[in-house]
């Protein structure tokens, strides 16, 4: 049943392409219908499979001569991320309700992207996973280049090139692993169970990990993220921040780390006091957290603030992955969900609620418009989303950061302190942006050049949906942890926990 999330999205995309050009509102409704039904399926599966263990959805031979199978399966981790995708997809459609330039095409690309994302999360065969992973690149490019804003073509091309370079690295690693394991199967468990030589893993791990991590915004390969986010139309940047970056992180965990666990182990000769890839990537993740936050602090463009905040938040995920303990890994997965919801919402506020109405994103220009009284709903939403993003307790971000920092205390105490500093800067940049955009100093209030259209119902519904989800995870994370942790205890991750989780 869960496989229908993919089929519905692709099918919806196909129908949309065939619709007559004038049927814009029909296209919107169809897209909403497709997104909602896919999300409904995801939710049903999420509620049904409460044990979090791996279950197969479809398993059919595909390219029999190469041992490649059409194998979809899900465990707790994929279930949660699929549900996240569903929620963000609905919100994205609602926030794109105002698109009226080639609406059919827009939503067709949108659904294509969504379908491919579902595919990545549900693939068990690595060939299949890679196929979906690459499909994502194309609609992403067109969504940004066609319906984007500032320097859209540049941003889109940069994103496409970074993605393709990342996936090229992944492809090298996957092919090498497939051949080295006897070219008989691409199934995740088969490859993860194959005893690759330590030397092979040492080399293959960083290649595949970085390949995926490029899409997750690992510093210093993050530079596509701010430009891409800024260039993208609202729905695309929501998806980009919400789920596409998660694909990278998911790949790091699901593929790079499970296939080559030995690659995380210590080197034979420490270099500059660093003695494993794990420490290298953890350090890069923390640099990403701090760098993203510091750069967000000095941006003049509202969307760049959020763009860099994504880099910072994704750093938490990568750090959580590198802690290699149950707490840190669970935290990383919750952070994927959390940032998916909150990052999406922040982009929606900036891109749709503010930019689409004011036609400027300059913080200095937004200030005098007195947006907190002109668009009170946008102001409130941004405050809530910003606070959720900075990790205020009660929202999902807090639980995630809490668990990641606990994990980091155990694994890299020094870095945990740096992370604390990063959290602080995070508070400051959100606050600064909020002050400047919505609550600028009074006294020289200018009315906006033209009356601002009030926030529409679809926007309100979408914002409420995302906030509610974030609060639900924040207040009752056990809901997600219940299915994540059995998945982390499964055989698949055995290589990461020699002798059990710490």
């Amino acid at each position, binding site marked *: 049943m869960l496989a229908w999330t993919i089929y519905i999205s692709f099918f919806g995309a196909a129908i949309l392409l065939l619709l007559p050009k004038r049927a814009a509102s029909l296209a919107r409704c169809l897209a909403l219908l497709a997104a909602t039904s896919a999300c409904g399926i995801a939710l049903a599966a999420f509620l049904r499979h409460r044990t979090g263990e791996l279950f197969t959805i479809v398993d059919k031979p*595909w*390219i*029999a*001569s*190469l041992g490649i199978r059409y194998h979809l399966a899900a465990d707790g981790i994929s279930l949660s991320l699929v549900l996240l995708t569903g929620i963000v997809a609905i919100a994205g459609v609602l926030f794109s309700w105002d698109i009226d330039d080639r609406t059919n095409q827009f939503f067709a690309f949108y659904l294509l992207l969504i379908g491919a994302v579902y595919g990545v999360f549900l693939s068990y065969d690595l*060939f299949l996973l*890679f*196929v*979906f992973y*690459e*499909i994502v*690149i*194309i609609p992403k*490019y*067109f969504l940004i*280049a*066609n319906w984007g804003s500032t320097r859209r*073509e540049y941003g889109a*091309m940069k994103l*496409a*090139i970074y993605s*393709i*370079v990342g*996936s*090229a690295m992944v*492809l*090298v690693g996957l*092919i*090498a692993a*497939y*051949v*080295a394991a*006897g*070219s008989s199967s691409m199934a995740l468990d088969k490859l993860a169970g194959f005893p690759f030589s330590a030397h092979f893993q040492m080399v293959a791990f960083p290649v595949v990990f970085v390949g995926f991590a490029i899409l997750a915004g690992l510093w210093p390969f993050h530079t596509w993220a701010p430009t891409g986010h800024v260039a993208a139309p609202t729905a695309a940047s929501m998806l980009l921040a919400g789920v596409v970056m998660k694909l990278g992180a998911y790949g790091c965990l699901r593929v790079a780390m499970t296939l080559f666990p030995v690659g995380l182990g210590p080197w034979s000769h420490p270099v500059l006091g660093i003695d494993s890839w794990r420490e290298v990537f953890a350090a890069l993740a923390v640099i990403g957290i701090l760098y993203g936050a510091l750069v967000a602090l000095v941006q003049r463009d509202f969307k760049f603030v959020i763009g860099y905040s994504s880099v910072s938040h994704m750093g938490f995920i990568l750090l959580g992955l590198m802690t290699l303990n149950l707490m840190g890994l669970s935290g990383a997965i919750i952070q994927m969900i959390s940032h998916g919801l909150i990052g999406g919402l922040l982009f929606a506020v900036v891109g749709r609620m503010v930019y689409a109405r004011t036609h400027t994103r300059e913080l200095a220009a937004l200030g005098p418009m007195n947006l907190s009284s002109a668009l009170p709903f946008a102001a409130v939403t941004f405050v809530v989303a910003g606070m959720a993003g900075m990790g205020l307790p009660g929202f999902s971000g807090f639980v995630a950061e809490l668990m990641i920092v606990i994990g980091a205390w155990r694994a890299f105490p020094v870095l945990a302190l740096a992370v604390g500093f990063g959290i602080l800067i995070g508070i400051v940049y959100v606050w600064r942006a909020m002050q400047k955009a919505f609550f600028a100093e009074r006294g020289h209030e200018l009315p906006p050049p033209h009356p601002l259209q009030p926030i529409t119902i679809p926007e309100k519904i979408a914002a409420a949906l995302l906030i509610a989800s974030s609060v639900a995870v924040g207040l009752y994370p056990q809901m997600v942890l219940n299915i994540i942790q059995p998945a982390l205890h499964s055989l698949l991750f055995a290589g990461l926990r020699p002798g059990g989780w710490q």
Partner: protein
Amino acid sequence: MSSIQPTYSQLLSLAIPQMILVGTALLAMSIDLLALRRATLSTRSAATAILGSLGCAAAAAYIAIIHPNGNLLGGVLLGNAFIQLLQIAILALTIAVLLLAAGSTFTRHVGEYVLLILMATVGMLFLVATQDLLVIFVSIELLSLSLYTLAAFNKQSRFSWEAALKYFLFGGMSAAFLLFGFSLLYGLSNSTSLSEIGAHIHGLSPLLAIAIVCVAVGLGFKVAAAPFHFWAPDIYQAAPAPSAAFIASGSKVASFIVFFQLASIGFAGAQGSATWGHFVRGWIPVIALVAALSMVLGNFVAIRQSSVRRLLAYSAVAHAGYMLLALTAHTPQSLAALVYYVVTYSAATIGAFAVLSIVEAQTGSDRIGDLPGLSRREPVLSFCLAIFLLSLAGIPPLAGFFGKFYLFVAALQSSPESMPLLWLVILAIATSAVSLYYYLRVLKASYITTPESSAALTSGRVSGEEIPRVLCVLLAAAVVLLGAWPSLLLRPLLNALPRVF
């Protein structure tokens, strides 16, 4: 020499497809000259092209139904499942090219045009069905001479003529190299049969080294591998679209197959090795270097092109580089990968040329700068173009992706423990990542850039392009289908393979 006496019936059964084609060619020309003298140009070209396609289809049907098997005179003319498959593929590609030519009006000599295409096809069919130096050479010359003429067919265009002359001169020179190489091989082994030659060669002698280099130059020219690619951009740009598509597709299939057989069977005793840092002299390092050079040069020069056709030409150089990877691995899997790759590559290339020919008929230009507006004017065509180019870029689920994947897997599979060719595979994957950039530039122009004049948005349909339009859609469907379900081609291919090795 084989002890089995050839029988004429066997020869007949193996050569019937070629004979059907020759017959069709003559028929087409005579019908054009006799029956269609009053008809309009586009009707003439449509009728002859369809006739030619029917002939090809008949030949393919014969092969598919009768399965002509046999081995004449120790490899002079062969028939087995693998060769049948290749011949069907070549015939299918030829049909595509003929359909592309249907309705075109660049020449008044349509009968001769179809005749030449079919003669070239005959050359290709012989080329893949032989393991004998003499037949190889004669077939190559039949193929090449037809292609030289096809390239020059657009008499209205000075560039077409100039490019064809260039092609002819380079081609003549490379034929000389090839012949010199063949003569050395004959001198070394006293035989023209590839297997005999392979049996006589043990280790690398200076003469053999010269022979290898000469053969590499000759066939490198045919497949447009760097640094023997100089003719390609001009031909791709200036030749009539069907000719260019034909040169880029069918002739590549045949040339790669013969290259593979020459290298893997004929030079079996002088392989050498191309392990990174441990080169051993032999034919493998030569091919590996040519492959590496082609990938890098093709991809990076393609970035700078402003003409879509020239861009396709340089990308063809890059693709030739990938395909040479299969030669360096020279295993059954790599042969299968090569065939899969070259066939799907050809399909995508013909498709791209088909779209371009229609666009050129409308706007008179193939420059990237003149593409804007295409997606609004011709949504179906531009969608097909997107599929072809993304397939060439290797984006799943299109055929080009699986082709690359399988090719790289096959290249590494030759020795899974040490993976001597890993560096080439990494280079190939890295450069193919670069390629997405220039393919996306084309798609960006057609989908994203807003045209400067509104004229680019209005449909300027030219008569006589219905058949190429249908062809585009069919080829796009084939590319998607082969990518999503590679077993369609792969299973018969792998089933046929054991009979070769």
